[in-house]
Structures are given as C-alpha cells and as structure tokens.
C-alpha cells in the first residue's frame, strides 16, 4: 500500500468520523438546548419520548421526514432547491481545517495493519498553512445559503429575512476576522495547531486571559454569525414568522437547521481552540494520557461543552436586538474595539519585540 493510498484511507476515515460525530452532535444539541432552555424557564422540556426525552431528536427526524415537501408555486425552483444544500455545504466545509482534539498515537492493537500501529494522527482533516484564512473564506461563503433561501421562496417575509440576515452576517464577519489578528500575531502562524500550542503551560497563558478584548469581540461576533439570540433577527420567530426559512418544510428545513447547528458547534470548537487553550489542561503537571487514553480529549470536550452551554444560557436570558441596534453594535462598537486592540497589541509587539 503506497503512502498516498494510506493517507487517502486515513483521510476518508477522518472525514467519516468528523461528519458522523457532527451529525450525532447536531441531534444531541437540539435535545440539550430544549431541555436546558426549559429548565431555565422553570418548565420541563421534552421528557416523554424515551428516558428524559432522549428520543426526541429521533422523533423530530421521523416527523420531518414524513412531512409534505411544499414549494411555493412562484418560487424560483433551482434557488429553492439549492439553498439548503449551500447552507449545509459551507457549514461542513469549515470543519475540514479545525482540529477536534489533540494529536495522539494510535495504540499498537493487533488487529490494526502495521502501517497504522503507533502512527501519530489527529482528528484534523486538512492541516492547511492558512487554516484561519480558510475558515474566514468559508464563513464569507456561508452568506449565500441565507441569501438563496430568502430569495428563492419569492415571498416578502423570506426576502426581508434573507436580506437582513446576509447584511448581519457580513457585517459581523469583519469583526470576527479582526478578533483573530492578534492571536495570529501572538502565535506567528495561521495554523490552529500552532495557536493551541502557543497556549501551552499555565492557564493564564490561554488567549482568553491574554487577549480579553479579542475574546469578547469574537464571542459576540460569532453569536451574530450563527444567528443566535440575542442576534437572531434573521429567524425572528415572533416578528416575521420564521424569517428566511418561512417557506421551507420537511427535509429542506431539517437541512437548514442542521447547517445552523453545525455552524454553532464549529464556532464553539473554534472558541475552545483559539481562546480557551484547546486541549491544554491549565496545569502543566497533568499527565498526557491515562491508561492509554489521551487526556487532552477530556479537557477539550469539557471546554467545548462549557462554551455551548454559555450559548444556550444567553439564548434563554437575553431579549433580541432590534435590527438597527444590531447593525450599529456590529459596526460602531465591535469593529472599533477589535481595531484598537490590534493596534495596542501590535504596538506592544513592535516595541518589546516579543509576541505574547
């Protein structure tokens, strides 16, 4: 087996693992979100389908599968069909350059072929030199799913939602990109692995403590990018029916939902990797592995779960921004804060010659 085929096989397995886990995580997230929101609102949430309502996502899936696929008569047929596909495709594309855990070496199990035993792998499909730029590019393309969806249905509500949503998305994309500049400066590289490595050591080296303004800007811009409350005007549930996806039903709706949740998970994983130290435990003395299981996964998983919880927490607590407030906040608050932080940090690097 040539090295090329070996790499190809490993890549295919990685893709299967990542996409499979993401789809599983998507259904789990719907359940977690509904239960958590319910508890915050002093009610129970889904608890009838299966123990603790755990089969609720399966029930939702079955329901959506059997619903009628309605398409408005005046709809633009190809755009209507393409929009959910574009939404999910761009969401999944971003997951190709994000590491989902520390690099570890495969144990020497007997049933593994010898070119796999003890091999160093990481759940990272493509280790690009310009990883963060790629993510920025894919985020920029993510606007098209919403624009297509809003336009295709040829209804006032959808079009309004689509235009608002795309304006919101590309306004906050700028702030998002700006917040990464100082991290890249500190780590001297665009690769996410390098940025995680830069945060090794004690937990006060984590970027969330060193680059506080960048973290705040990132968190708010990311909430706006994935259209979470308080920035969820595109969906505006109580305002313009369901916004840009008003006319979608059944599996297409499920696809759009999937795209949104995968975006959310991607943003949370990025927050963990870029700001919260990734798979570094904050204490240098912790062992690398326990009984052969790399402990990095535990720290990483806990941090991702925490970030997702904060997103759900915000959703249950805050009211929604009005559209003009939202645009003003993005342009007049987030971008200047990010720009000033870039100037301050870059100035410090230039003056002291050190990088964090």
């Amino acid at each position, binding site marked *: 087996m040539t090295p090329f085929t070996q790499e190809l096989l490993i890549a295919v397995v990685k893709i299967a693992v990542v996409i499979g886990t993401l789809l599983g995580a998507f259904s789990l997230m719907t359940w977690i979100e509904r239960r958590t929101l319910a508890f915050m609102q002093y009610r129970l949430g889904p608890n009838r389908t299966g123990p603790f309502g755990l089969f609720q996502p399966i029930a939702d899936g079955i329901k959506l599968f059997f619903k009628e696929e309605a398409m408005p008569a005046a709809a*633009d047929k*190809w*755009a209507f069909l393409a929009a959910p596909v574009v939404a999910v495709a761009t969401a999944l594309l971003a997951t190709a350059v994000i590491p989902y855990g520390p690099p570890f070496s495969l144990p020497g199990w007997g049933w593994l072929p010898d070119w796999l035993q003890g091999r160093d792998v990481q759940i990272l499909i493509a280790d*690009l*030199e*310009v990883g963060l*730029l*790629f993510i*920025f*590019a*894919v*985020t*920029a*393309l993510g*606007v*098209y799913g919403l*624009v*297509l969806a809003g*336009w295709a249905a040829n209804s006032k509500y959808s*079009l309004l939602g*689509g*235009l608002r949503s*795309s*304006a919101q998305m*590309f306004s906050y*994309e700028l702030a998002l990109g700006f917040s990464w500049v100082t991290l890249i400066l500190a780590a001297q590289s*665009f690769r996410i692995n390098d940025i995680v490595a830069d945060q090794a050591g004690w937990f006060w080296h984590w970027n969330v403590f060193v680059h506080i303004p960048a973290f705040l800007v990132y968190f708010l811009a990311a909430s706006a990018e994935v259209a979470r409350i308080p920035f969820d005007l595109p969906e505006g549930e109580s305002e313009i029916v369901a916004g840009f996806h008003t006319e979608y039903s059944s599996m297409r709706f499920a696809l759009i939902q999937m795209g949104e949740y995968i975006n959310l998970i991607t943003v949370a994983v990025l927050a963990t990797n870029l700001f919260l130290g990734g798979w570094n435990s904050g204490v240098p003395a912790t062992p690398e592995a326990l009984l052969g299981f790399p402990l990095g996964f535990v720290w990483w998983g806990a941090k991702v779960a925490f970030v997702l919880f904060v997103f759900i927490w915000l959703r249950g607590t805050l009211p929604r921004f009005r559209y003009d407030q939202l645009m003003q906040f993005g342009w007049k608050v987030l971008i200047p804060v990010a720009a000033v932080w870039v100037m301050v940090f870059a100035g410090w690097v230039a003056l002291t010659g050190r990088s964090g």
Partner: protein
Amino acid sequence: MDAVLFYVFAAIAVASAVVVIAQRNAIYSAFALVVTLCSLAVIFGLLGSPFIAALQVIVYAGAIMVLFLFVLMLLNVRREEDGPAAGGRTLRGVGLALVTLLVLQAGTVLLRADLRPAPDFDASTVEMARTLFSPHFLYAFEATSILILAALVGAVVLAKKEL
C-alpha cells in the same frame, strides 16, 4: 493529481463564465459568477498562492458578489430583459466575437514565451506580507485605504434617496 484538479476547475470556470454571459436571468448569472470566482480561487491555490486564493474567496466571492446580489434582489430583477434587440446588435455582437478571436491570437504569441514555473517559489503569507509592506508597495497599500474610504462615501451619497 494536481493536473486533474487544475483541468477540472478550469473547465468549471469556463463553463460558468459561459453561463454568466449567456443566462437571461441576472440572478443565475450572479451565482454562476460566484462559481467561476471560487474555481479561480482553487486554481490560484494550485499555482502556489494560498493567500491570494483566500483573498479571492473572501473579497470577491464573499463580499463583492454579495453586494451584486443585494442590488439585484432589491431592484427585483426577475423580469428577463435580455436578448438581441434594437439597432443591429447582433452585428455588433459578431464583430466583438471577432475581436475576442484577435485577443486569443495575441494569446498564442504570448504562449510561446518561456513560462516555466520558477523554482523556490515561496508565496506564503509571511512572504506576501513582507512584499506588501516593503517600501516599494507600502505607500500604495496605505493609499488604497483612502481609496476605499472615498468609494464608501461615494456609494452612500449616490444611492441615497435625498441628500
């Protein structure tokens, strides 16, 4: 492997460019242009320029084309206002096709030039930044920010209903 990718994406780029100029519905043209831009970005990557490839997607496909789509949707261009029309347009079209052929002829002359890829080609982001901020280009780089400001103000003023 690189060869296959290059020809596949070159074919996609040409095909969507043809859709851009041939499609009557302006919105489909815009989306075809997005496809062209993204395939060009892949080709830039294959030519060893990851930074320009990323910029192409971020700036062109991600911002400029969204602007185009916005305007198209706001002006509600569903009516298909195209096709050969008044004033001997077809004749002019054929004339321009001949001009294009001339362009391609010029191209074949160009193609006889020695265009082997240079060895030691490093177009990584660090090298790009080094060149961009070198004294040779620094002034132009700062001037573009003023240019963008001017364009911003100009666009806002031109599109306003009343000043």
